[in-house]
């Protein structure tokens, strides 16, 4: 026994962990790390096929920052992200507060109802909402017409100023309930005795929310804000499906990832697409760090 422990056993003890992580490492390096490194290299080239590439140094980045289409894509994506953070998350929090009330009848049913849009796939949602927003025959137009006598011809997905509201509405339908679950979980973890103490101290509902609830759910809130921001900057499937693989009227539906896709897989310049990808990644990273800094994630509690 002791002989074994000093021979094979010792050998295994030293190398077995490396062996165990080896499959993951091999796969990660092949399908994760190598493409990442390759895309960094590609971002310094103009490309067209494997045999046709020309080194251009930082020209792709220079061109990117003067490219009006990229500017438009950034603006559209930023508007969408702003709606996600400033409209979607407060709505999710509001719903969570409402559905966290013990005196609400059928609250489990409501929770399921609000969460259920997330259960269906993005493709389904895209197709469904294309039909809802259709001009003349779409559910939304028919409803607005019956209720307010609005025109049936409002073409939500083909009218420049209406494209972003349509995308935001769809995204709200899909994600408000989903983010509500995070907030609900956080709310249930807030120490009830704090509310009791606050009530004894004479704090009103608003003061309780501001001084007890918000600090209690802060870590989760920061997590949700960062996730929503990153998710919004990666917006692709929804406009791709709802606008029929186009940028939408007046480029109003062009997002950064759509522009990346267009360059990489439609025009065939993977070099420029990589430049867009890395710029997006760096942008999101800076934004996430900024959010963490301003929300005091790294601030030490007194």
């Amino acid at each position, binding site marked *: *026994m002791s002989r*074994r*422990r000093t021979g*094979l*056993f010792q050998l*295994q*003890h030293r190398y*077995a*962990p490396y*062996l*165990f992580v*080896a*499959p993951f490492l091999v796969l990660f390096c092949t399908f994760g790390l190598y493409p990442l490194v390759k895309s960094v290299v590609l971002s310094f080239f*103009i490309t*067209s*096929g*494997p*045999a*046709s590439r*020309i080194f251009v140094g930082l020209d792709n980045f220079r*061109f990117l920052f003067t*490219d*009006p*289409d990229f500017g438009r894509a950034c603006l559209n994506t930023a508007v969408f992200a702003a709606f996600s953070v400033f409209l979607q998350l407060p709505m999710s929090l509001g719903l969570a507060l409402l559905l966290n009330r013990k005196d609400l009848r059928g609250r489990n049913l409501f929770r399921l109802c609000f969460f259920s849009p997330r259960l269906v796939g993005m493709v389904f949602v895209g197709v469904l909402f294309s*039909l809802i927003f*259709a*001009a*003349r*025959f*779409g559910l939304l137009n028919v409803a607005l017409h019956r209720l307010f006598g609005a*025109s*049936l*011809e409002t*073409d939500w997905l*083909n*009218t*420049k*100023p209406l494209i972003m509201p349509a995308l935001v509405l769809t995204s709200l339908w899909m994600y408000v309930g989903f983010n509500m679950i995070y907030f609900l979980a956080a709310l249930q973890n807030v120490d009830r005795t704090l509310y009791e103490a606050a009530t004894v101290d004479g704090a009103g509902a608003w003061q309780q929310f501001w001084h007890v609830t918000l600090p209690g759910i802060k870590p989760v809130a920061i997590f949700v804000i960062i996730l929503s921001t990153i998710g919004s900057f990666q917006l692709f499937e929804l406009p791709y499906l709802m606008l029929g*693989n*186009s*940028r*939408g*009227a*007046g*480029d*109003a539906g062009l997002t950064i990832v759509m522009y990346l896709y*267009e360059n990489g*897989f*439609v*025009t*065939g*310049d*993977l070099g420029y697409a990589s430049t867009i990808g890395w710029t997006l990644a760096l942008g999101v990273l800076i934004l996430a760090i900024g959010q963490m800094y301003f929300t005091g994630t790294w601030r030490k509690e007194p």
Partner: protein
Amino acid sequence: MEPKPPRSQGPSAWESVKDAFPFGIAPFLILLLTVVSGLFLLAVTVFHGPAEGKAGLSMWTFARQHYVAYEKARPSFERKYATRLDLQSVHGDAVTRRLRAAYWANLDLPDVVEVEISRAGSFFRGPEGGILFADITDFLTQPDPDHPQKRPLIDRIVKTRLSPYTHRGRIYGLPHDVHPVMLAYRADLFEQLGIDPNKLETWDDFLREGRRITVPEQRYLLNLSRSGSWAVEILLFQRAEPNSPAGYFDADGQLIMDNDKAVDLLTWYIPLVKGPGRIAADPGMFGQAFAKATQDGYTLCSFCPDWKTWGFQHDMPQLAGKMKLMPLPAVRKGGRRTSTWGGTMLGMTRHCRDRDLAWKLARHMYMNKDDLGERFRELNILPPFKDAWDNPAFHERRPYWCNQRLGTEYIRLADQTPPQYTSPFIQLAKSKMGSVVANCLSAYDPRRPAGLREVVRRELKAAADDIRRQMKRNPF
């Protein structure tokens, strides 16, 4: 009696085995499974090869209807050339993505592939040696080995249909279709409203009738896009003349989408879809909204290339005997009565192992007279191979279209089909044109129509300048 010796307290065999694994047996088994399955997959890939590798030829098509038709033609090809064809139906978007990805990764590409017209140009982006498709110019220009007495194939194909697949003077794709555009109209409603299609010779005649019968929000004469480029490009191609090109690019690949013809067209087009003189609505050209608009008589006419007639028959069977086709109104009397919309090319990829066999496949699928006739009966697509046009199938009466001879109508217009020149930037140009339409529409104030021309010129120039910047960057 001596007492039995106590049983050995040493480790059991199982414990001994367990001892040999300091992290437990489970992780080891998982590792073993991973390694064995990984090696198995590797072995399968190396020794067995991908499915395509076993066939004589592999072919991808993006249109479901094409796939069904080629499946029918496959057995006769396999018999004739004693080979096996691996035919695959791949979604239109996926064809481009998969071709590009496979080309980049040097993985198996199909030998032969069909690509949609607007996507083909993007494959011509690199230097000549880097283009994914093989040059088929020689196959087309050399004497036809099957019919040495006939002229080379290039002279027996509608010439303008080669333009989208020609780059720097070389041809990379065999056209599948002609796609002349006609107007599909509700014959029953035309009659009710007293519209005589024979009198709609020019767009001026058409507009006059349109303004007479249009009832805002209830009935429009035409289906036009308010945000996309498809309707504008149909009308733009119609205006092309030998010495005065119209469209996105000219024969040399120069961008012309902001020339005077485009400015004239858009200045004419925008008031058709906005303002008091409006005669057109935009229920789209596909799907349920389009079908409902046609059935309800909300829009009476739609642009209808040959391929779209199948869509009418398939999606709106209740309109059988109520639909008819007429040539497009001309820009001026005696002018071109058609345009073109859509198309497909068949290309051989550079990886094709047997180009002669691939060319035989192309000819079998695209130039077999009997098959083309049968295919026309099913899909209504007019092939560009003129030798096939005397097949009776192209001249049969169609009950759905009020007994019109569908093929005869399109054949009459085929040689007038305008060229549409391509470029690697064609998709970008189309997308920009859609934006120009939307922006002009937003800026157009029907109370001050005089300013429209300037708006159109400015928008077109801005869009074209963006594309030129991209083109200038392309070093290939």
